[in-house]
């Protein structure tokens, strides 16, 4: 008899304490948290914090694979490229204008959410009357210089030469460049968490498989536990619901820690030489400065390749949330914008350097647009995590550089 009474007291006591602390207990929130933790953990490589449900087909398209000139690509990207090559020639009597967008995931999302607004602005130019505009999206999660220049050269080799190249970059260069250096890899090499997993001689070593096995055990444990908890509706009890979320969080933390160990194991042994890239020369000791130098040099290279083919090269330094002074941070952005310490250090030290280097690129004749301050007076939430813009943010970004793009096209 004593146990049911104790449990009831615990249940109501906890609800009372939570209500008194101002947070209150919400069964819906607990259910949503358990579902989110389960969904985030379905893939072997842990997904970042996101409320988007896991989609097996999408997950397959997002699978990363080795690519000889880009380090890696995603399955969906390779399929998309195949379609883009196939549809590159105009049908008889058709007049098309092709605009390619390069960059990381921000550019990838911009191609979906910012392009409609950009096209509206371009349509105001008489030259686009009756002309079909084809948008080619070459943005990929984690891509950064010198991957973008390598991508452009590869596309040219395949005969894919658009009329305009828009390069929307900046964040990955400094955030992932700094992270690479912290993980012992050269800032010019692809992002370690994206690339290390794919090195053939790393993944199938027995000691690495042992780590993978342990991660899969934790992932299965979390999946089964969350399914069990959700099936039984544990969120109806504040006591059990809170304990269930705590347990799920702990399993998630174990998966993340396991994946860190897995990445670390891949960085050692035979794959190490292929992973770390060249040794850092003495003047590259500052990895953020090195990342910015590579960013600028690779942009010059892209411009040279484009100009030799009479292609307009348009370079945009993307805005980012944690660049001090870039935007008044909204409470929602504060909540959802947690950022890795290396990324933050990269952004804080790298953005001022990129603005300076960008001004030099512009002075040397590059069509460069510094978008890093376009939201400095915008208070509404525009970021849904630490770097990605929502639809409104993408529209504002399109409007911000659209006018200069129109002007640059008008001059040609």
């Amino acid at each position, binding site marked *: 008899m004593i146990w049911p009474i104790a449990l009831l007291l615990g249940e109501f006591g906890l609800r009372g304490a939570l209500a008194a602390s101002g947070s209150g207990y919400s069964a819906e929130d607990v259910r949503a948290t358990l579902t989110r933790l389960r969904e985030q953990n379905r893939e072997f490589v842990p997904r970042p914090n996101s409320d988007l449900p896991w989609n097996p087909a999408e997950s397959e398209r997002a699978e990363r694979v080795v690519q000889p000139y880009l380090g890696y690509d995603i399955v969906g990207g390779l399929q998309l490229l195949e379609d883009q090559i196939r549809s590159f020639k105009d049908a008889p009597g058709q007049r098309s204008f092709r605009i390619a967008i390069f960059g990381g995931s921000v550019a990838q999302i911009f191609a979906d959410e910012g392009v409609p607004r950009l096209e509206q602005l371009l349509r105001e130019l008489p030259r686009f009357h009756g002309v079909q505009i084809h948008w080619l999206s070459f943005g990929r999660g984690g891509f950064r210089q010198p991957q973008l220049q390598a991508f452009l050269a590869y596309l040219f080799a395949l005969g894919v030469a658009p009329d305009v190249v828009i390069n929307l970059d900046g964040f990955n260069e400094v955030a992932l460049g700094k992270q690479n250096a912290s993980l012992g890899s050269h800032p010019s090499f692809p992002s370690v968490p994206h690339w290390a997993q794919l090195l053939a001689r790393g993944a199938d070593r027995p000691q690495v498989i042992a780590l993978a096995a342990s991660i899969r055990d934790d992932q299965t444990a979390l999946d089964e536990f969350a399914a069990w908890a959700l099936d039984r509706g544990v969120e109806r009890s504040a006591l059990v619901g809170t304990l269930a979320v705590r347990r799920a969080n702990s399993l998630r933390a174990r998966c993340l820690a396991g994946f860190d160990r897995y990445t670390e194991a891949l960085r050692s042994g035979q794959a190490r030489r292929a992973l770390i890239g060249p040794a850092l020369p003495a003047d590259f000791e500052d990895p953020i400065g090195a990342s910015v*130098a590579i960013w600028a040099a690779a942009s010059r290279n892209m411009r040279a390749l484009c100009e030799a083919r009479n292609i307009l090269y348009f370079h945009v330094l993307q805005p980012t949330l944690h660049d001090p002074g870039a935007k008044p941070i909204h409470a929602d952005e504060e909540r959802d914008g947690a950022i890795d310490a290396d990324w933050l250090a990269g952004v804080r030290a790298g953005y001022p350097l990129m603005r300076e280097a960008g001004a030099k690129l512009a002075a040397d004749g590059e069509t460069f647009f510094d978008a890093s301050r376009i939201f400095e007076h915008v208070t509404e939430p525009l970021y849904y995590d630490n770097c990605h813009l929502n639809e409104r943010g993408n529209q504002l970004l399109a409007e911000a550089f659209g006018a200069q793009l129109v002007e640059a096209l008008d001059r040609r």
Partner: protein
Amino acid sequence: MSTPPTSTTTAPPSAGRRFFERWLFWPLSLLLLALAVELGHRAQRIVTGRPYLDARAAERVAKLAEENVKIEFARPSTKGAPPGSDSELLPHPYAAFLSRAHVRTLEQAVAAMRDATRTELDVVIVGGVGAQMFAGASRERLIETLPTLPGWQGRKVAFWSFADTYVKEPQQLELVLYLTALGAVPDLVIDVSGRNELLVGSANALADMHPAYPARAQWQPLVFGGATDRASLDLLVTAWRNQREIAAVAARAKAGWIHCSLWAGDAIDRIEHLALERSLVLTSYQRRSEAAQRELVLRGPSPPITPSQRIATSANIWFQSTRDLAALCSAHGIRFVVALEPFEEPHHAAKKGSESNGEKPGSGRKVLMQAAKRLTELDAIWIDAAELAEEKQTPRELAAALVDEIVRRLAAN
């Protein structure tokens, strides 16, 4: 007449008897039973002509364990090149692969070329087999003649050769892009190419790979085992667990369980079953991995199909990447020369009779020459090394003639 009720009660067993039953009788009975079963099993094995011998069972378990625990999942990295050797190919994110020696060269070249105090004339040599021969045979003559050119007088020549047997465009372009992005800007880039672009590119297409992708034989071993998607990892993990279980069974045998014929027979069956199961799992993994590569990683975009398409695509890749290399060098103030190397057609695969590629002798070179002539319109210096080769007997003579022609053309431009 009635009889008085009687009760039949037995006296409780004594403490000594209880102890005997609990601690001696039953354990001894079980032991004797196990012994009887063991002896019975051994007798049955003798009768059926398969006598059980401890030593033989131990040997069998040890052999099975050795066969199945020593298996490595990782495949060799490069055909023929021992791990750690200079010629071992390592995956490179932008140039597809670099030999271990060239990884070192790259590191040294970047450090040297970024040193503003140096006065050396930095010469980078890129390309495939022709470039490799040229780099070996032309060194002295280049050292002798390049510093005679206006603007380069008196400068010591520093060589940075990245030429490798199977390298082809766009690998050269990607490498020079990478060097310049790192701030390493040479004075001269010599590209000796054409052969691999056409022949290896066509061979790729015949093997259902895009000609723009790296040479199949070199690329395939580097990406094998790269199937790290969740389902493939699950297969690897299953195989790995299976291997651990075999090791555990072998360890128990070593601990003395081998003397039990019943357990040992079962252990052998179990190991054989696990080995079979794992072999099936690894085959699935391998097939999955190869299928993934064939479709995506290994193949690249859809390759051209007909012989003329294969030649045209391969030649166009050479032309597009070479013109980009020329433009890149021009933007950095780097002098650039491309030499179209001599080679014979049809390629080696057809010669060996393994498969005819359907190409007419000389057709590829003709297309490549047409493409090269377009380089002239773009102000790039190109040399037909095949023309020079006609009168030369040895690689050294050809290299010397090519150096003289390079120097003559550089002086004239």
